[in-house]
């Protein structure tokens, strides 16, 4: 602190010391009068007798912010499982088969393609990189899936592909924010928050919006990708862990028994009830509810997050590794959560950023291992939901924040030892499955090397509009007033993608 700061501080302190009761009364004449008037007005409220204060018409939402509400339009699904591959998986090694790219392998990329494009790492003129996987058509739909995903290729008839999703972001953080909040900048609510705000939660013992992460890191954009933005914070995602305590600090502290905890909460709630009888503030009721819900969650959450009690054949189908943090565990948990009435389950799996800077990020090596990691669990998730009759009323969405280039990455203009691809948002693949989705559909076609869309280009807003549509919302009418204008998830854009709807 320099001397000027000290001087100013001292001056302020002197001023405060010089203030007397006289000043207070003098300065606050108007304010105190107002306060007094307010309390008069309250005390002679002619509409409510003193005993009837508690009968103010409260909506269910006033008391319980997670109370469920009917959607404006008939919904096709009541819950969502969103599988996000953080880092952006390569569509060219998984779903988007480009034989021409194979033929052009190692040829210099034509300059016309590069003009006006921004890349994160590619400099100068890169070479085209042929697909590093073998492709085949699968199922009755005849959709293409690579040999990196042998299990998924057996359930391919359940899903609908979007082959030409477009994003204008080419760095992970903004692109992930865009994918989950509809804006590449901070401050907007995530899809899960919009959905829990709009529909509430069916199960009153569990959070409405649960987030599970795997791959060792959380997404680059941070926890804002499941944040509630300007919506009340009760609608933000609750991160649960498949390893250790499912929710941090969920256990009672040592030496505090369950009964003692219950009587503590009862005592607090009694005081709060008295407070409510006096002031009739619905916030107090909401708080009472939150205490009770937290108490119930203490038993309900560990129960639903425990995968050990699942039968052996189910665990094998998913390929779970109990006690570890894995995508497989999270897929099984996602099913359990949806089965128990959780509205929105968000999975993030980290490690898909295949730049080719090393073994783990090579599209022919590390990427293949990542594919093996998700192949069995996500296929098992679809089959398990199906056999339980849940796939009819659940929407499963798979995707990354963008796609990858048909060109091999040449970081700093140098040729690299491993084969990798740079970030590319012009056209990449996502898929959806579940209620209201046209099974085996494929919408969107990319050019011969998979660089841009030829037909059926859809935007991130379109994907959001489609998800909202299936949940029973018109994305153009589902708004929240903030800073003087109504905001919506899709801002001023978005069209429902009819081509993949049943």
């Amino acid at each position, binding site marked *: 602190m320099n001397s000027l700061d000290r001087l100013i501080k001292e001056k302020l302190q002197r001023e405060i010391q010089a203030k007397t009761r006289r000043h207070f009364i003098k300065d606050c004449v108007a304010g105190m009068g107002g306060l007094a008037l307010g309390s008069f007005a309250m005390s002679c409220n002619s509409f409510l007798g003193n005993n009837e204060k508690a009968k103010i018409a409260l909506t*269910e939402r006033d008391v319980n912010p997670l109370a*469920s*509400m*009917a*959607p*404006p*339009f*008939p*919904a*096709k699904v009541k819950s969502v499982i969103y599988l996000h591959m953080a880092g952006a998986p390569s569509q060219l090694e998984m779903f988007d088969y480009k034989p021409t790219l194979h033929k052009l392998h190692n040829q210099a990329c034509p300059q016309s393609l590069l003009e006006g494009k921004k890349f994160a790492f590619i400099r100068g003129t890169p070479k085209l990189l042929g697909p590093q996987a073998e492709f085949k058509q699968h199922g009755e739909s005849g959709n293409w899936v690579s040999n990196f995903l*042998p*299990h998924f290729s*057996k359930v391919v008839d359940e899903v609908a592909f979007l082959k030409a999703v477009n994003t204008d972001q080419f760095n992970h953080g903004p692109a992930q924010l865009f994918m989950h909040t509809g804006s590449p900048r901070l401050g907007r609510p995530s899809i899960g928050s919009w959905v829990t705000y709009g529909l509430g939660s*069916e*199960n*009153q*013992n569990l959070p409405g919006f649960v987030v599970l992460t795997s791959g060792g890191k959380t997404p680059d954009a941070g926890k804002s990708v499941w944040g509630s933005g300007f919506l009340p914070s009760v609608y933000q995602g609750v991160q649960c862990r498949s390893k250790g305590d499912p929710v941090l600090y969920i256990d009672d502290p040592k030496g505090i028994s369950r009964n003692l905890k219950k009587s503590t909460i009862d005592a607090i709630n009694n005081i709060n009830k008295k407070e409510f009888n006096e002031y009739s503030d619905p916030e107090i009721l909401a708080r009472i509810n939150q205490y009770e819900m937290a108490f119930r969650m203490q038993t309900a959450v560990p129960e639903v997050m425990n995968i050990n009690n699942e039968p052996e*054949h189910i665990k094998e*189908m998913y*390929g779970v590794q109990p006690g570890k943090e894995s995508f497989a565990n999270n897929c099984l948990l996602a099913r359990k959560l949806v089965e*128990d*009435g959780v509205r929105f389950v968000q999975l993030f799996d980290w490690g898909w950023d295949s730049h080719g800077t090393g073994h783990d990020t090579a599209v*022919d*090596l*590390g990427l*293949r*291992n990542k594919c*093996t990691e998700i192949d*069995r669990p996500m*296929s*098992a998730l679809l*089959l*398990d939901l*199906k*056999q*339980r*009759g849940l796939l*009819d009323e659940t929407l499963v969405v798979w995707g990354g924040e963008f796609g990858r280039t048909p060109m091999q990455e040449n970081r700093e203009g140098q040729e690299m030892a491993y084969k990798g691809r740079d970030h590319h948002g012009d056209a990449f693949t996502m898929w959806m499955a579940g209620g209201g989705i046209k099974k085996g559909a494929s919408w969107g076609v990319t050019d011969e090397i998979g660089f841009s869309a030829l037909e059926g280009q859809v935007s991130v807003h379109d994907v959001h509009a489609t998800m909202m549509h299936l949940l*029973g919302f018109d994305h153009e009418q589902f708004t929240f007033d903030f800073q003087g204008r109504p905001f919506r998830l899709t801002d001023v854009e978005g*069209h429902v993608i*009819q081509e993949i709807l049943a």
Partner: protein
Amino acid sequence: MEVIQQLIGRLHPLVVHLPIGFIITGLLLQWFDRKNNEWSKIIGLIFQWAFISATIACISGYLLYTGEGYSFDTVKFHLWLGITTAVFSLLMYLRLLVPSQVHFLNRLPVVLLSFSLLFLISFTGHLGGNITHGSDYLIEPLPNSIKTLLGVGPKVYEMPTIEEENWEEAILYTDLVQPILNNKCVSCHNSKKEKGELQLEEENGILKGGENGAVIESNDPEKSSLYARLILPHDHEDHMPPKDKTQLSKEEIDIIKNWIANDNSFDKKIGELGLKKELFRAFFPKAKDETYPDVDIAEVPKDTISAIKKKGFHVEQVSESSNFIRVSCINKPTFSDKDFDLLSSVKNQIVYLDLGETQITDGIFEKLSTLPNLTILKMDNTKISGNNIELLEKLEYLRNLNLMGTNFEEAQLDHLKRFKKLQIVYLFNTPIKKPNQADKPKEGEVFFDYGDYELPKIATDSIVY
């Protein structure tokens, strides 16, 4: 000169209140004076002024009619009644003040003249209001229920539609552009009203344009005021339709834009113009949602719903616009057969019932058979074995039945095959064995999903590259 005419015309709404005031005053005085008959001189004078001001009002009204493009059909009753009012004021004046000179008037009863004038000012005034404010102005704020009683119902614009199968065959102008104009523009721009001297009822009017010239600049929508005014901010004074009128939807505006951008042809088919299908999606008739029964059903009172919620059920309308409800016991695992009676008040509305993981037994089927509209029924992970399941056959809408994780018996499956609308039955984790070769169900046949899906181990599962 024209300016002065227009100005005087525009003073009409002000001037008309003078004769109204005089006449009302005169009538009131007549009422108070009905017994004594002492004030007839004053009253006569008032009606003299009523006549003079009514005449001025008639003149200004006529100038307004000629200057602002109202058609004669719209104003004729108001015009004639206005003149009649002036004449009746004159008659009243003559009757009261100069009886000796006009003999036949002496035989006219004053009361008749008074009531005629009362009727005339009320009705003329009302017609005048209709012209300036629109004929639905007065009844617009009434609740819709009363409007329906009056037989005027809320105005509902139906979007024009074209068939999805042969959308390229539709003629852009005839099938979409003109119907949109009819719905949203023609009520002011027609041959009667002709606001801004513009008629949008048919081809000639549209091409002729309005007081500012043509409204269409072929192939340049931005320069065509027919389109450009639609996309101005709503509170801009040139925005059309005026901001308190029904606006065009985004899709409708796009149609107008594309029509102008493609030669504003009056006879070409959509296919000939080479427009994209996306543009017309909003105009395809919406496929009927067949998720739930297509029957009208009464709304469940809000307090009934909260009473059921208080009992621990999860209850929710299917959507804000549907009276059907979904009921789930997700927060009420103690639900048993006898608790079913708690739901009797909403029997007709339940279309979705989730009794999964509850204490129900086979005794529940008899009760369930009283839910006429039940479409989706979940009884997974319960103790039911399927005895008496045939009772559910009379549920004519039952489509989706979840029996997963129950002790459902194979012998009962035959009953299910007879259910009319049943499409899928989930049998995973039941004692029933999965048949070795499951045939694909034929159209209209129930599909039994035995579950037990497997993802057999393969060599690549354990390879790490």
